[in-house]
């Protein structure tokens, strides 16, 4: 379970609905605090009496947010361009924490787990038992290096571990082991395109540099109970994270959100990440500063004082928090004030960031190289091997889907993001089976005709999507199979493509397969036994029908005449479809294809009726 689909996310973010599968459901039903990561000791209040944002279920927050917007009468603000403020330049840098997809913790052989009973997977070192020592689990390097490669980073041959000191009950040793002085990866780059959702002002493409990627430990999970009681689950302590730090090169809020989304997508694509942002597997801190646009002209002029907003847990929160913080800073500066370097927080649904602490409250982390841990040496052969076996990255795959199969950008992105990336695999399975049936497998020039591919994509996305509109689940597996076996969908599509069945029959067959009414491999048999083959009317029979329904429709006919005479600009398509509809009802529907009916109706109008009408 490594990816949350964008479709799911939008449903979730915009309407607050959550599909009831997997970890999403389980996560949000528990009243846990939000500290996913050890970024800071003091973010989390000690007493549960202080409302902390994520202690409230996420869905409820979204509801409250909507309510707040309604009462303030600002609901229709969507069209306002909130990406730029004239006269000001915004600069944003982002730090993203992601849980790595590994079986063991970073420095102990204890298993990583997310659903198990609390405190089941804890080694001596995880609890900082005196005399225990860290044992680096080298398998952690597989997802970590893959993630860094997906982000275009340079993998350092030698990196080191440092201790970052602060006291918090969720940090048993009193320090977090991280890579402060020598991170294992540096100098990466993420390219963002309009399809990733960047601000229009960023044009066709914007490259954001990744300054560093470092390995570090997660903290224990705190659950606030009634009274001033906290429960600690040490299953999570020591789970490996990577922290990804961008350079301050982002200048628009939407682009910041797009970057986080893109990083999540890249991490999921290389199977480096456990879960997406909303499942708590990814978390972002943003550094925000503004300066007058005039200052930005001269290179090397300093950025404005920055503030940091911690623990943002959704893409929308990233964008909204940046907008709010930018506007706050601009308001201060315009009033002649000074922006203070401080740490701020953000609650979903609010309209402004809140101060957590100022500079004077900064912790001195007293970074120290960990004396128990030697340098981490990553050999070239490992990097080469992981780079070679990494597969195609999402951008490349989207480009391939568009150019090879003629899909739209939107459809390509949907295929890639649905079902944690399994949907596109399903699409390939269907396409292969379909091409085999259509005997296109050996066709040397697939580009000549991509209609079958578009058909397959259309059904894999939209028709398949309709199946699950009523609560049930496709049961998509990572290797791209689901309750509608790819071979059966391919069988349906092959018949449809050859016009051996109608689209309506095809949809019914799909439901039949989905509901297990048609056994796998039994599509053709089902068509046969139910007499669903499409024996289309002959052209003459269509023409007869057309003639029959046109009778008494003189008023409609006159519309066509007016178009022909140039009196109206638009072809009366609606009227045509009205006539086709009449035709479909008049005839035997199972034997008719609306497109054939339309074609012949149009031909009859042009060749017979309009000339007759003109003549009269």
């Amino acid at each position, binding site marked *: 379970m490594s990816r949350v689909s964008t479709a799911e996310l939008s449903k979730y973010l915009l309407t607050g609905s959550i599909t009831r599968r997997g970890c999403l459901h389980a996560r949000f039903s528990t009243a846990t605090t939000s500290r996913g990561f050890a970024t800071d000791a003091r973010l989390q209040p000690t007493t549960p009496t202080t409302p902390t944002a994520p202690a409230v279920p996420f869905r409820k927050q979204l509801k409250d947010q909507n309510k707040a917007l309604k009462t303030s009468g600002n609901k229709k603000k969507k069209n306002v361009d909130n990406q730029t403020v004239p006269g000001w330049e915004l600069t944003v840098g982002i730090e993203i924490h992601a849980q790595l997809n590994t079986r063991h913790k970073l420095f102990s052989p204890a298993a990583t787990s997310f659903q198990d009973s609390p405190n089941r997977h804890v080694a001596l070192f995880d609890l900082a038992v005196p005399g225990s020592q860290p044992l680096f689990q080298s398998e952690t390097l597989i997802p970590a290096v893959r993630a860094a490669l997906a982000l275009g980073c340079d993998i350092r041959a030698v990196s080191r571990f440092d201790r970052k*000191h602060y006291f918090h009950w969720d940090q048993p*040793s009193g320090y977090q082991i991280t890579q402060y002085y020598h991170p294992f990866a540096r100098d990466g780059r993420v390219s963002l395109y309009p399809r990733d959702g960047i601000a229009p002002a960023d044009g066709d493409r914007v490259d954001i540099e990744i300054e560093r990627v470092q390995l570090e430990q997660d903290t224990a999970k705190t659950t606030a109970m009634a009274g001033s009681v906290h429960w600690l689950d040490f299953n999570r302590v020591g789970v490996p994270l990577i922290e990804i730090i961008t350079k301050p090169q982002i200048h628009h809020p939407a682009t910041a959100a797009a970057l986080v989304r893109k990083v999540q997508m890249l991490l999921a694509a290389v199977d480096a990440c456990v879960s997406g942002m909303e499942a708590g597997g990814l978390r972002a801190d943003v550094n925000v500063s503004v300066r007058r646009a005039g200052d930005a002209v001269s290179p090397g002029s300093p950025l404005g004082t920055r503030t940091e907003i911690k623990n943002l847990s959704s893409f929308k929160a990233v964008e909204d928090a940046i907008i709010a913080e930018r506007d706050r800073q601009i308001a201060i500066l315009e009033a002649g004030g000074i922006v203070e370097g401080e740490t701020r927080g953000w609650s979903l649904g609010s309209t402004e960031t809140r101060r957590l602490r100022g500079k004077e409250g900064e912790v001195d982390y007293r970074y120290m190289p960990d004396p128990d841990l030697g340098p981490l040496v990553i050999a070239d052969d490992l990097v080469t091997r992981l780079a070679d076996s990494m597969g195609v990255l999402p951008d490349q795959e989207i480009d391939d889907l568009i150019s090879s199969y003629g899909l739209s950008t939107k459809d390509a992105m949907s295929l890639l993001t649905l079902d944690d990336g399994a949907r596109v695999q399903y699409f390939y399975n269907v396409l292969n089976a379909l091409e085999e049936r259509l005997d296109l497998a050996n066709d040397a020039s697939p580009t000549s005709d991509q209609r079958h591919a578009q058909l397959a994509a259309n059904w894999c996305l939209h028709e398949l999507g309709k199946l699950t509109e009523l609560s049930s689940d496709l049961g998509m597996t990572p290797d791209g199979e689901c309750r509608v076996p790819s071979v059966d969908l391919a069988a349906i599509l092959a018949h449809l493509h050859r016009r051996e069945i109608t689209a309506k029959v095809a949809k019914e067959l799909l439901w039949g397969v989905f509901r297990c009414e048609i056994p796998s491999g039994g599509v053709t048999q089902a068509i046969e036994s139910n007499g669903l083959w499409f024996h289309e009317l002959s052209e003459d029979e269509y023409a007869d029908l057309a003639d029959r329904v046109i009778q008494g429709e003189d008023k409609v006919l006159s519309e066509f005449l007016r178009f022909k005479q140039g009196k109206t600009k638009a072809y009366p398509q609606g009227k045509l479809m009205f006539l086709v509809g009449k035709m479909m009802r008049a005839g035997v529907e199972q034997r008719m294809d609306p497109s054939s009916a339309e074609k012949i109706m149009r031909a009859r109008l042009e060749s017979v009726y309009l000339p007759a009408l003109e003549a009269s």
Partner: protein
Amino acid sequence: MSARARPRGLHLRHVCPPNGHQRRHLNHFISRADASLTSAEATPVSNDPSSTFTLAVKDNIATASFPTTCASPFLIDYRSPYEATIVSQLRARGARLVGTTNMDEFGMGSHSTHSVFGPVAQDPEGDAPIPADTSSLLSAGGSSGGSAVAVAKGEADVALGTDTGGSVRLPAAYCAVVGFKPSYGMISRFGVVPYANSLDTVGFLAREVSRIRDLIVGGGTRPGLWAEHDPQDPTSLSSAARTRCAGGREGYKFDTAWGKKRPADLLRGLRVGIPLEYNIEELDPAIRDSWARVAALLQSSFGVRAVPVSLPTTRHALAAYYVIAPAEASSNLAKYDGIRYGARATSNTTAAAAAEDGSAAAPASDAAEGGVLYAASRAAGFGAEVKRRILLGGYTLSAAAMDNYFLQAQRVRRLVRRDFDRVFALANPLHDGDADPESEPPSFDLSDLDERVPMADKRGPEEEVDFLLCPTAPTPPPTLREVLAKEKNPVEAYMNDVFTVPASLAGLPAVSVPVSVQPGGAGEAGRPGAAGLQLIGQYWDDARLLGVAEALVEVLRDEGMGR
């Protein structure tokens, strides 16, 4: 840390009462096995009765049999859920645990006085009874003072200590026993409560070098500890590295010709370096005299060449040590918060009460930051010396001081190691990368060298040496009263480590053997104090070091200069 400051509600099950007034013994054990019981824990794993020996374990090394208190109020009732690798290794070699020994809290101290169980004292001279007030007795040295006394009194054949900056060698010198600090990375630290990980080593104390040599080098069918890698300790050298390091060394094969040499033959032809920088002003004249007499004896009667050598960074080593060790300590001791184990101070302290009052108004994060639980627990759970070193370390690691202290100290540490590498004939197998033998030999800055060092050519001194010979401690053991009187000036106490710290910084093996101090010399009040002479070897030259130490002890005994 006075006994009163101990968290309430804890019941001692230890042999030494924390109340000094009731003490009428040397206070060297914290927990002790009941001799009348033959419990499973006291039974050695080995079936060969001839190979069994009694073992005392410093109380910062985890045992399955006893609490592991580190002599700290924090861990006064703490029982480790597992046993240290070294204890298991020794059990497998026939060790029978007799108890855990008293020490300076977490190993921080030079006299074993900073203990929640009270100070350790040495046996009075002759057959004098132990007085109720032990302050007139001699310091056992620290921090492994309990282990040294247990060995000196014959209550254990071998005692384990930990040596971070001299904590095994110094008490060995004070108590006139043998104390050995192995090469860093040879003995597993898994289960050893860390003080400063990059310096900590498990050390061995015994009355005879041979006991220790048997364990380290092995003999007959028993494998030596030197060969055993522990996968639980990331700083334990891998088996491959052990073999590689031992490849260029003599003495690891116990039954070879080298191992069977007579002491005099072992010494013949050795080149022993006399580090001139160790002849400091604070060095007790009687000890200086012993040092000189032994060097002269070796040179005149045993064909040893005593070579003056220079270790120019010595004078900075102690300062570097007292930056690095507290820095690591402050980090290591951050885990003691009373949350998961150890003593937790309850909220009826004033600090907690004040914080509770304020919590309604103050942001909740302040409560976490103020660390009600932490502050109270850590205030009550640590002794004064530990707190002092935590503060020192916290400061030297702070962003403002890091560059001037911690990083400088690390540079000094490199120079200390380079000093040793330059004087030893053997190469340091861990650093062959940065000193390519084909390239320019390491050059000396002549202005750094002591002027008495003879020069071979303009490049540097004439001779490389096999071992260094120097005193273990600059003075004979003071009385506990003297120690307590000087407590106001901790820097003076830190001075005791001046000769032991350099080998710790460089990770080198070193052994302290007892030597007599000429009565009537300028020793303190003419007291016939014990002293230790220290032999320092190149990295992983432990086997030969122990062989030569054994020979040295023997010839000193023959010459009437031993103890």
